């Protein structure tokens, strides 16, 4: 049978998936992303629970400004803060991902 020789680049995903460095990165990344998500979703959902079932946030804090406004401000600050945290973390994850790709290339180039 005549076999044509094609220069095709095929990535061995299974190989990468087996690499312990990949598994480590995957675990680290996922646990970071999901735990932060759970935290901010809880912080967010607590607001309507407090306002619908208690009167805590209805009390005045400073002048006529009630506590609910401070809670809301807190959520805004949290959002901006966590957006920046993400970018910083993602940068370091990117570097690790690059190392993993290089490791794979070194291994496959043998």
């Amino acid at each position, binding site marked *: 049978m005549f076999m044509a020789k094609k220069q095709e680049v095929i990535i061995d*995903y299974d190989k990468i998936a087996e690499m312990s460095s990949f598994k480590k990165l995957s675990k680290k*990344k996922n646990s970071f992303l999901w735990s932060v998500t759970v935290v901010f979703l809880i912080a967010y959902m607590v607001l309507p629970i407090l306002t619908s079932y208690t009167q805590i946030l209805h009390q005045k804090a400073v002048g006529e400004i009630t506590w609910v*406004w401070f809670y809301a401000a807190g*959520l805004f600050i949290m959002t*901006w803060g966590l*957006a920046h945290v993400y970018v910083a973390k993602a940068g370091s994850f*990117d570097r690790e991902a690059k190392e993993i790709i290089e490791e794979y290339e070194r291994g496959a180039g043998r």
Partner: protein
Amino acid sequence: MSLIAIIMFVSIVGLTLVITWWASKKTSSASDFYTAGGGLTGWQNGLAIGGDYLSAASFLGIAGAIALVGFDGFFFSIGYLVAYLVVLYIVAEPLRNLGRFTLADMITARFDKPKVRATAALSTIVIVLFYMIAQLVGAGALIQLLLGIPYWSAVILVGIMMTIYVLFGGMTATSWVQIVKAVLLMLGTVIISFLVLLQFNFNILTMFSELSTATDAGSAYLNPGLRYTNGIDTISMLIALVLGTAGLPHILMRFFTVKDAKTARSSVIWATWIVGLFYVLTIFLGFGAAAFVGKEEIIAANPAGNMAAPLLAQALGGDILFSFVCAVAFATILAVVAGLVLSGASALSHDIYGQIIKKGKMTEKEQVLAARIGSLTIAAVSILLALGAQTLNVAFLVSLAFCIAASANLPVIIYTIYWKKFNSNGVVAAMLTGLISALVLVALSPNVWNPTPGAAIFVGEPLVMLTNPALISVPLGFIGGWLGTVLSKEQDLAKYREVDVKAQTGISVQDVSH
């Protein structure tokens, strides 16, 4: 309407038309048409995302809601903002690393089956249509008020304009229209906020104490509870808001207009700041309208409060500011609507027609033509539906679009990226469950049924007391996806490994050097 208003209007509309013409010179391939050739930078795309996001619902609707009911209106701002974190942490990067043009592309990267593509395209089209009708109804009311023309001609006018934008420019045009729109919107909002703060001598404490007596609700105006008296209903609505963004097809498409994950990330940061700042300013718009325009005048112009922001502009800045704000609101609606048409068009032309019917065998030229015909179809259907929807509340339609996105799309996106065992039956099951349960629950809700004649579409008792069914339909979507998966034997772990590696590392064939 005064001469100034007309001039302002025509100038802004003219500006967007010029951008469209310029963009059409650059559009030739299907890739160009759908995703601006992947060439926008981080801040440009960030502004475009902001422009996409700050639709008429945000500017007109929230300002009006805060003006009429105080903090309860502000819930929308909070929800929309935190929703961005959901997109950033869970969805944006994997999406960018996997997808090509559409949501369906991203899911079929893992499950390459026609039924998966078809279901994803269906979900996209339904969401797009609801969102479109909302924007067109809002546009109709705005133009009707401004120009004094009847509702139906206002809707058709907007419809024709957006079709022109999309037909001749595709994504590049809409991206740049969004950017221009975002800048103008922020400018208008900052100016009005400045004028409002000026009235209070830039003293926040004074502003709050004035507002505690400015409305007939007294100090209750400053607290939640004026409109949302039912705890479960409030929570359900807030679930839809925070989870819906991550499932919206037209926002998700924005991530394909940049060249790599890093740029996608930076563009989301830009968008978060821009959008966040805007939502802080909505407080000043709402409070200002409540104090300086007054409830009666706001409701007289539009019972849902949608004209609060323009009326405030008029009260503080005269006719010039009024016409500027109206023109910006018009551009706002136009830009969002163009983006929506594109999402729907790509689902129709690229997914259903291109991949399923034509099995991927189309020339570049055919693809572009199909995209344009798809745009025309979506535009025409939406206009027709909007003509019949004049009495429907804009905010309700938008929150329903969010609910469907959260119930049908989000479970699938999450399972696709993160769940090893997920299969194509799960995709179909999740989407259909989410879609159908959301639609059915809304059909049985107080939005549609009300014992008081005229308060809703039908007269009667609603079976489901939730105005937004997210609390029920979102879990159902997740459960549907789980059941659909475990009840069938199909599995492809190798494919998942490929998807996982790609999503986590961003590796692509270009990266591998040998």
